[in-house]
């Protein structure tokens, strides 16, 4: 197992190098530069050129890349041009929000998606299944920005039950009540993802239900709930786990719309803002961190899969 993990991590190095090269090349290909964003509308070419030199942006791209890589290898992701803070600190600010938001959303997705999927599959073809399918389609098709604004308007403005936006740090203040800021965003973000999981669980279980061993189990007289949970659900779960893993990574890095609507200081919004500002070190840093995160989650998914399905071997 230890050797397997080590091999996988070593195998990830080429992925990281290729991805970082591509990212570096692409973001420097976009026209526009941070110096002109920082100096405002009045700045003339001379001022912009002077600042570009101070920021090292006038050096050849390959030189900038090698410099960046050599710093990354020493654990230094550089400094944000915009915030004049270490990139790791800037990402850390966003990571708290993104991690908690992803966690709460995952809890909702699992709490809604798995039971509803099991129920839909168990009662497939009946009115219960049809109603669940209808609801699933509805939630899958509601745009998150609309749902977010609707929840803000009804729950936060009209009923004044929860805050409209923002997220004061919990880790720093120790104030757990701040988690209430994440309730509406988590509901918003979980709606389409729960719908996806319900469909996946239902489809996976229906496939397994046609297998011979399920018929055998029923023939042996095992109670229906035991057949569903022990034989059907567990086997259907293998495909779902992989999807949940990537959904989790996606929730951390791609929740841009939800973070924008709720003014949350998360990673998704940070990366989009950084692209608009051409804050190269932050863009590179976030993408690097997200890729590493993807690789780790992928590894965890594979390990969990072997635990769920003993036929799969780690090699």
């Amino acid at each position, binding site marked *: 197992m230890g050797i397997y993990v080590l091999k996988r991590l070593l195998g990830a190095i080429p992925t990281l190098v290729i991805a970082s090269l591509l990212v570096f090349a692409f973001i420097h290909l976009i026209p526009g530069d941070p110096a002109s964003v920082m100096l405002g509308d009045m700045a003339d070419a001379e001022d912009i050129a002077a600042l570009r030199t101070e920021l090292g942006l006038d050096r050849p791209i390959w030189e900038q890349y090698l410099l960046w890589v050599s710093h990354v290898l020493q654990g230094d992701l550089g400094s944000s041009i915009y915030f004049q803070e270490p990139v790791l600190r800037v990402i850390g600010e966003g990571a708290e929000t993104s991690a908690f938001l992803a966690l709460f959303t995952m809890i909702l997705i699992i709490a809604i998606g798995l039971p509803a999927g099991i129920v839909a599959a168990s009662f497939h073809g009946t009115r219960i299944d049809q109603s669940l399918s209808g609801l699933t389609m509805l939630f899958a098709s509601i745009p998150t920005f609309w749902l977010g604004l609707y929840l803000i308007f009804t729950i936060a403005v009209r009923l004044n039950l929860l805050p409209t936006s923002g997220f004061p740090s919990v880790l720093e203040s120790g*104030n757990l009540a701040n988690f209430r800021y994440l309730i509406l965003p988590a509901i918003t973000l979980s709606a389409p993802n729960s719908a996806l999981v319900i469909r996946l669980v239902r489809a996976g279980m229906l496939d397994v239900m046609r297998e011979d061993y399920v018929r055998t189990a029923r023939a042996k007289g095992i109670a229906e709930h035991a057949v569903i949970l022990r034989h059907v659900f567990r086997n259907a779960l293998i495909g779902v786990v992989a999807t949940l893993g990537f959904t989790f990574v996606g929730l951390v890095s791609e929740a841009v719309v939800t973070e924008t609507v709720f003014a949350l200081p998360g990673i998704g919004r940070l990366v989009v803002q950084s692209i608009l500002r051409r804050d190269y070190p932050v863009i590179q840093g976030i993408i690097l961190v997200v890729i590493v995160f993807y690789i780790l989650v992928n590894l965890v998914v594979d390990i969990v899969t072997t635990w769920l399905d003993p036929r799969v071997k780690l090699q």
Partner: protein
Amino acid sequence: MTMLEGRARLGPAAWLKTASVAAAMTMALATSAWAQGTFRFAMTDEPPHLDVQVTTATLTTLVDMHILETLYTFNSKLEPVPLLAESETVSDDGKTVVIKLREGVPFHNGKEMTAEDVVASLDRWGQYGGRGKVLYDHIQSVEATGDHEVTITFKDVFGPWKNLLAFNNGGPAIMPAEIVGQATAEPLAPEQIIGTGPFSFSEWRPNRYIEVVKFEDYAQPPGAPDGYAGPKDVTLDAIQFIAVPDVGTRVSGVQAGDYDYAELIPGDLYEELSSDDTVVTIRAGIPEYPLVFFNSSDGIFKDNYALRRAVMAAFNNADALRIAVGPEELWDAQGALYREGQFWYNDAGIDSYPSGDLEQAKKLADEAGYNGEPIRFMVSSSYPLHHDTGVVFAQEMRDAGFNVDLQIYDWPTLVNRRAEPGLWDMFETTHGAMPDPILYTFMNDNYPGWWTSPEKEELEAKFTGSTDPEERKQTWADIQKLMYEQVPIIKVGDVFTFDIVSPRIEGLPEQQTMFWPVFWNAHKS
């Protein structure tokens, strides 16, 4: 042990404890996480940095108006009046200005402001600030001629000097010499932003907020409060500037009481919010205006004033503003660069302000020798006002027979491309009102558009070379007239933005008649 046994063992004391924890959590949920004396301002984005000397970004100015002060500032009539300066004497030839500074004014780091700090601040701004060069091109020397006295010697008579020293946006904020003396083109870090203002910088949490806190030792300027001048009645403990990019969230946040103030609400919501009890609308008293620049340096419009006039004739500014802004209270399709009632107002040349006369446009285009050459018109998708009016203008130009290549970019890309004279023919941007016409970008020979002509240079020299306000005003009228002949820009019209504030806030004006909102007199009830 079964679950049932476990639950049965919970005695009355344990239940009480559980209930009290639940009650405490409910209370914590009910009370706000924010301090009572913190004013929460929802702004559209974060500023690029807080070094106002080297950027004209409005977001930077909004924060820095509370932290940094200048030698002069503007009163409610938008006239420059002393702030950190106490008085000045101007020599008879108009070339030497001796400024006496107020004494006993502390910086946020405790040090008293002296002439040395002022000289270092002005010199850094003059060298690296975009607006600083406008003044320093005319300056021979700036010297400390006493602990609290600064002498500015000009190369020639330069009329707008006081307006330039009073304008905070991209302006000469006074900071301690030991900080600003070392500064270069690179913006100062936030913790280096130390000034003499009523609030001091506290912290910048990336993507969360920028916080400034009340400066207890603030030296109150003499006189009565008037515009940005005079004493400040600070009762707030702190102001947080929070980036809330989604406008729906900015509005909901003020309605629900999560924010106290939100800026730049779209015109579509004006009528609805004006009759909403949970917010108070504050309409800008002075406008900002979209401007369409022509490339005077390269391409089809170079030296072809007639063709520019033909394009201008096709513009129906009222239609574009109606579509882009909405309610008629929020825009005015008028062609003067200043509004009636303002000091610099005049109506020279505005007979040519267009109203979408397509036949006239076609006729003028024929006379100008236009043969269907493509016209590259750049607008930015980052600003709805630019984009929406730009799309209307492009269609109007096509209707008049122009071959328009409308190019839509995000703002940094547009800024990058417009610096290259070979890449474009027209672009659109927005400018705020300026206290002195010399500060308008189109007056700057180096600003993209690059308007230079013998007539302009002659009038500009006359304009800056006089200190007599009435003479300068007359020359400005001549410049405006020339603008409608040579058309370096098309002034689209006046747009009045509006902000919203919570009814719990007192002390803010009903109409925002200054350049930017300031919150030092705001109180929470």
